[in-house]
C-alpha cells in the first residue's frame, strides 16, 4: 500500500509570495495533520483536519490556512511568505482524529524562501 504522499518535493519561493502544498493520506485514513520542521528542531503542529473540518490548530499566524477535500487529501496554503517560513513541511495521516491514533508521516516538502 502507498504511504502518505506529498507534492512538490522541493520548492523555492520569494518573500511575499504565496505557496500551496499538497498531501494525499494513506488509503482509508480520514484525518490529515500538518507540521513545520525547522532545521535542527522537532516538528511543530500547524493543523489537524478530520472529515473536512478543522479539529485543531497550532500557534501559527493567519497567513497559514488549510483545507481537506472529500477524498481526504489536503492542501496547506501560506500567504505573504517570510524568510522564517523556510522549513520542511510534513503531512501526517491517521485513521481517526483522536490522540491515541498513530500518525504516519509523508516525506515532506522542503520550502526555501529567498
Amino acid at each position, binding site marked *: 500500500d502507498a504511504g502518505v504522499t506529498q507534492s512538490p518535493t522541493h520548492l523555492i519561493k520569494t518573500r511575499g509570495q504565496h505557496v500551496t502544498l499538497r498531501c494525499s493520506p494513506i488509503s482509508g485514513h480520514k484525518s490529515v495533520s500538518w507540521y513545520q520542521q525547522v532545521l535542527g528542531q522537532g516538528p511543530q503542529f500547524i493543523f489537524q483536519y478530520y472529515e473536512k473540518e478543522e479539529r485543531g490548530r497550532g500557534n501559527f499566524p493567519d497567513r497559514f490556512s488549510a483545507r481537506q477535500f472529500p477524498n481526504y487529501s489536503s492542501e496547506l496554503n501560506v500567504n505573504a511568505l517570510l524568510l522564517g517560513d523556510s522549513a520542511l513541511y510534513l503531512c*501526517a495521516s491517521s485513521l481517526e482524529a483522536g490522540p491515541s491514533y498513530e*500518525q504516519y508521516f509523508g516525506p515532506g516538502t522542503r520550502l526555501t524562501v529567498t
Partner: protein
Amino acid sequence: AQSVTQLDSHVSVSEGTPVLLRCNYSSSYSPSLFWYVQHPNKGLQLLLKYTSAATLVKGINGFEAEFKKSETSFHLTKPSAHMSDAAEYFCVVSSRNSGGGADGLTFGKGTHLIIQP
C-alpha cells in the same frame, strides 16, 4: 497544555551496548505517548506508542519504552545498539485540549543517537 523534554540532545554508545534515550512529559489529560525516528534525509517513522494499556511497550527493531506515571517519564531503550540505529529520535505526546479538540502531536527537540564502531 502538553509538553515534552528530551533530556539529552546527543547520546553516543558503542555498537552492541545498551541504548537509553530519556524523555519526560507534561499533559493536562491522560496522554498518548510515542517515539519516532528520523534517519538523515528520510521521513519520520513510528517506533512505538503507549495509550494506557501495558506500561512496557515493545516497538520495532528491538526498541521498547516504559511509561512511568509517577515520574512522568517515557524512556526509550534497546539492549544492543546497531550501526543502523544512528538517527534522530523524537519523543512525542498527544492529548485532547480543554475544549475537546486536538492539540496535535507535540514533539521534543530530539536526541541525536551516535553509534561508535
